[in-house]
């Protein structure tokens, strides 16, 4: 048969496409469970690192069940009773693309050594691609207990420094509210002088600004809920079997 005839070329292409498609589908489907498990564990690992629980990806599943006691879905400051998706499965990239008032966003409630923390996942834009993070608040819904940040492809040595403890450690003890009003935390160039500022990365200005607007944007849907935490015994708070922590001393 003439391998350069049209008929042969068509037959060859069709067979090739079918064989390759079948092979790739098989590879994709058979490896999917292992890949999904990796992604889920990584998400748990990142959530845990914001409450200063540092575990390897392998340990993340177990540690997550140990520390994260419950999760809520928040919409415009109120707990959603029947969310369309469970909190853990909410994709922050999709959620963050909606207007603030329409988002259904997850809130994880952690319990570390009897202390209660609220973890807020965040997602925003850096210089080259998405940046994300988790911010944990103390029981007053105001004071930052810990933060962790990640990025897709910020410049190594510059913007990529947001994922180091040197940067995220600055958030500890900062406050997102000022006299009951939401002010978020600014990422500034100078040395921080108030409780609502941290120092940005020199040479990573666009990434720093991205983190700042991510904080503001992603915290705002929670503000009304967090305010209720500041007052005693919020009605919508989950039932927890924990010791009450003295908030005013923090």
């Amino acid at each position: 048969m003439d391998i350069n005839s049209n008929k042969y070329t068509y037959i060859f292409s069709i067979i090739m496409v079918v064989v390759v498609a079948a092979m790739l589908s098989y590879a994709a489907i058979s490896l999917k469970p292992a890949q999904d498990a990796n992604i889920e564990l990584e998400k748990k690992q990142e959530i845990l690192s914001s409450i200063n629980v540092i575990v390897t990806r392998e340990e993340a599943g177990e540690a997550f069940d140990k520390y994260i006691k419950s999760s809520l879905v928040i919409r415009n400051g109120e707990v959603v009773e029947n969310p369309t998706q469970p909190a853990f499965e909410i994709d922050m990239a999709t959620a963050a693309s909606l207007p603030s008032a329409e988002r259904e966003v997850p809130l994880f409630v952690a319990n570390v050594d009897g202390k209660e923390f609220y973890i807020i996942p965040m997602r925003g834009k850096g210089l080259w691609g998405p940046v994300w993070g988790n911010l944990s608040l103390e029981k007053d819904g105001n004071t930052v207990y810990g933060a962790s940040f990640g990025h897709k492809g910020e410049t190594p040595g510059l913007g990529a420094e947001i994922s180091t403890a040197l940067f995220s450690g600055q958030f500890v003890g900062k406050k997102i509210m000022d006299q009951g009003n939401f002010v978020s935390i600014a990422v500034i160039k100078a040395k921080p002088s108030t409780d609502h500022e941290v120092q940005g990365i020199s040479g990573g200005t666009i990434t720093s600004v991205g983190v700042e607007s991510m904080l503001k944007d992603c915290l705002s849907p929670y503000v009304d809920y967090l305010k209720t935490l500041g007052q005693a015994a919020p009605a919508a708070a989950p039932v927890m079997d924990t010791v009450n922590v003295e908030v005013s001393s923090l």
Partner: protein
Amino acid sequence: MSTADKSKPKAGLFSKENRKLLSDPFNMQNPVTVQVLGICSSLAITVKLQPAIVMGVSVLAVTAFSNLITSLLRNLIPNRIRIIVQLVVVAALVIVVDQILKAYVYDVSKQLSVFVGLIITNCILMGRYEAFAMGNKVWPSALDGLGNSLGYAWILVVVGIVRELTGSGSIMGLRIIPESWYATEGGFYFNNNMMILPPMALIIVGIIIWIQRSRNTKLIEQA
């Protein structure tokens, strides 16, 4: 197989010609330093040694297997769509490699990110199929793919070692420069942050080319 192949004398598995296919790409025909192919990825993923090694292994698997497959099919591939067929072969293999990395070495696969996918566009690969595998038997083609990807891999590894040692003070994530030397700990030492940036990889590749050409005068172009 075709008549053209039959007329050639049968060579041993590791005959002189076949050994040369493996060894030439290390030095005289190195894809990176002599043919200047695959530069993009060698700049991008050599900040640390581990991703450089994984990239080298991935390229090795893809090049060797797709050279082999292209060579197996070489008498069946219609001439007019041969580049498309070569692309499909390499793209399919790259996707399989990417899926395997995502499933079993997730952290490294994140570091390599788009560059695994970009193996497809690595000129070394298409160059080898078009220039070698389309016209040679299966075994020499596999050796040729192996040799070229090893030639690519050793450059990556050398650049990776230099960049990780000078840029981060470690090798394979193990600390080489003691913590106490660092200025932040009261010492005198700073990491060279320039080494983390891609341009320094180009300069290291340039230095390798310099050393190589000063040792092999045959490689120097006539002015």
